[in-house]
């Protein structure tokens, strides 16, 4: 009897210990909170919703630190450079990858991907190169592609459909009024609408990026530079920029951007970026708007200009194709005390089922399971333009010195396009001098 009692007591003890251990695990996880840092915009709000699923599955609570775009780089790079522990996960801009990898801000993810069976071949190649790799085109991964994005265009489909405007356009240009496919067509359409009265209101041809402070005008002008023949460097000789950055084609492209700014935009658009573009389009001020695809789900649902009134098209081409890459990858911050949970989040996020949900709630997945889905092209009116764009994206320098390289371009381009300082050739020549100086300081040029 005594032996039985002892056995029962021992069993009860083991059961109690097991119960306590099992109970403690979720309790511990529930105490954990990780912080995800990103820019403050529509997709970030969608991610908040999506992440509730992660919390439900893992017990890890999520906190979010979102900073408006104009201050995003300043704020977050400061955080990383000061080795701050605010962010466990960072959805950082694509151009940060070089600096963050070389400075040790991000955790290298190769081993983790191998262990968890996450394959980079499952994601769109342009996004892997743009958001995850450093050095570029090498299998060294510092992020998981999180938000596929590029610059695209919206236009007022209802204005383009007006019979009187169509007739007038046909008479003038001997072709139908439609979303432009080349930059020449773009200019014709934008000038056609410039200053015209539509629905009793004076409207303007196009909205393009002109912002000076952060990255705006560079993110705008490159959409003309790339298709017209601008190259960052000699493809055969890295960092050799003479004749590429300031080639005759690049000069022509810069002049072209200025001609659009001068002849097809609304007055006062001298320091305008994403937000101003949305305002201009939503208020019915412009016929065509340059902006990132990330905003298009919201615009498509807009009660005033969305639905049947809005159309989308990919960046026009010229002698070639090209468009500015947007978007970001998600990285684990090296200074985070919660790396385990942060990696758990990345594993959860990489799941194809979650990627499909991410697309559905308003994000933009770079996963092939989403992009190669037969129904994807019909999933949204902007989807075909997005797919076309992702096949021709080009990114700005992602070097550790990207911020300096960017500021140099901001200054030279703004000086020429907005402030009428010098010629396009002088601006690009000066840019080559600036960039050479930066690469020399970096020891990448002699």
């Amino acid at each position, binding site marked *: 009897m005594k032996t039985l009692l002892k056995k029962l007591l021992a069993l009860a003890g083991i059961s109690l210990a097991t119960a306590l251990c099992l109970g403690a695990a979720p309790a511990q996880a529930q105490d954990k909170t990780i912080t995800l840092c990103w820019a403050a915009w529509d997709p970030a709000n969608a991610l908040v919703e999506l992440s509730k699923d992660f919390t439900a599955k893992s017990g890890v609570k999520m906190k979010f630190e979102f900073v408006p775009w104009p201050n995003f*780089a300043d704020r977050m790079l*400061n955080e990383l450079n000061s080795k701050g522990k605010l962010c466990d996960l960072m959805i950082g801009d694509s151009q940060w990858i070089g600096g963050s990898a*070389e400075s040790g801000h991000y955790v290298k993810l190769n081993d983790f991907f191998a262990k968890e069976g996450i394959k980079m071949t499952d994601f769109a190649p342009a996004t892997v190169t743009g958001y995850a790799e450093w050095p570029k085109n090498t299998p060294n991964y510092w992020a998981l592609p999180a938000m596929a994005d590029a610059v695209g265009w919206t236009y007022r489909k209802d204005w383009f459909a007006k019979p009187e405007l169509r007739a007038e356009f046909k008479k003038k240009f001997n072709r139908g009024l439609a979303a432009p496919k080349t930059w020449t067509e773009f200019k014709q359409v934008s000038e056609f609408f410039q200053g015209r009265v539509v629905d009793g209101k004076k409207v303007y041809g196009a909205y393009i990026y002109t912002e000076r*402070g952060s990255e705006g005008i560079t993110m705008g002008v490159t959409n003309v530079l790339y298709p017209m023949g601008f190259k960052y460097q000699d493809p055969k000789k890295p960092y050799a920029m003479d004749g590429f950055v300031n080639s005759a084609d690049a000069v022509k492209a810069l002049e072209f951007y200025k001609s659009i700014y001068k002849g097809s935009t609304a*007055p006062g658009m001298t*320091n305008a970026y994403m937000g101003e573009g949305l305002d201009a389009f939503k208020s019915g001020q412009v016929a065509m708007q340059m902006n990132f695809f990330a905003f298009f789900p919201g615009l498509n649902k807009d009660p005033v200009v969305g639905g049947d009134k809005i159309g989308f098209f990919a960046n026009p081409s010229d002698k070639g194709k090209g468009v500015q890459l947007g978007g970001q990858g998600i990285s684990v911050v090296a200074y985070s005390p919660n790396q385990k949970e942060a990696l758990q989040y990345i594993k959860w996020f990489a799941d194809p089922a979650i990627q499909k949900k991410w697309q559905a709630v308003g994000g933009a997945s770079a996963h092939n399971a989403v992009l190669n889905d037969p129904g994807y092209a019909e999933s949204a009116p902007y989807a075909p333009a997005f797919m076309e764009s992702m096949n021709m994206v080009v990114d700005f320098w992602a070097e550790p010195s990207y911020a300096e390289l960017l*500021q140099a371009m901001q*200054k030279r381009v703004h000086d020429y396009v907005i402030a009428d*300082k010098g010629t396009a050739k002088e601006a690009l020549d000066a840019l080559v001098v600036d960039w050479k100086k930066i690469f020399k300081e970096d020891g990448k040029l002699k």
Partner: protein
Amino acid sequence: MLTHATPGSQAFLCNTANTKPIMTINRTLERAALATPAAMSSRLRGLSDRAIAWLFIGPTMLILLVINIFPLIWTIKLSFTNYRANRPNANVTDVGIDNYVAVLTDPDIWLAMQNTAHFLFWTILLQMLIGFTLAYLIDRKFRGHGFWTTMILIPMMLSPAVVGNFWAFLYQPQVGLFNYSAALLSGVSASSFSMLGSVTLAPWAIVIVDTWMWTPYVMLICLAGLRSIPDYIYEAAEVDRASKWRQFWSITLPMVMPFIMLAVLFRGIENFKMFDMVNLLTSGGPGSATELASITLKREAFEKWRTGYSSAFAIILFVAVFGMANMYVKALNYVKNR
């Protein structure tokens, strides 16, 4: 106070005890002395005046050392290196005075300094002229002058961020009130010019906003100066049959001059480091037309991350402001003591 006062200070208090304000101070000090806990007062009794003085200013000195002096010394140290805050793993080497040479020979820096000089000169000139005129008018004590004083003071009570944002709307070529008013007065089309987008107009746009915001501050200082002039001086001048014009040039202006100079000093220092409002209005653009020294410094330090270079620039700016302010204070003292 009486418990701890030195014999000298007691004598001073006794000698002047017949004046009302001093009596009030005496009573306050007495109450403070009585309120001091016995244990503390017995401890303090053994300390010299100098020791007590150090005891009081010690914490402030310590905070100043930690948050002002140490960063200053650190900045000086960094200015002689090639350090970059965004490359924590990179080698930091001593570059001597290279950063200082680079700053002083950089045409972009000189352009920023020219922009700053333009901004400083015109804002200070306009603020002094308008501020003094307003103070002179308000000092006339007309019906409702209290209300108008309050109204005039409103702009300086606003945050520069708010001011920057709403002036950006006012300057909007299509819907902005400024362009609309200018169009109404001049007959030109409102959308034919852009205050913030034109290289010629943008430097004036920021001067207008700063003048709008800070003229009331200058007015307050001038008003204090005007009200400090005793009436009997004007009465004596009246007796001597001095004209109003003569009274203004011989009494008002000389006696208000130290106040005006003080306002110039305050506004000069403030505008030399102007950042927030201009950054919101133009971000230094179009091109670099409104890029003031502080905006350039911020770009170098926190956008390009050239920490060593920007430290050298910061030190040069600091020495320039500190040196000019010192010379100016000497001139101010000279004017006061005339």
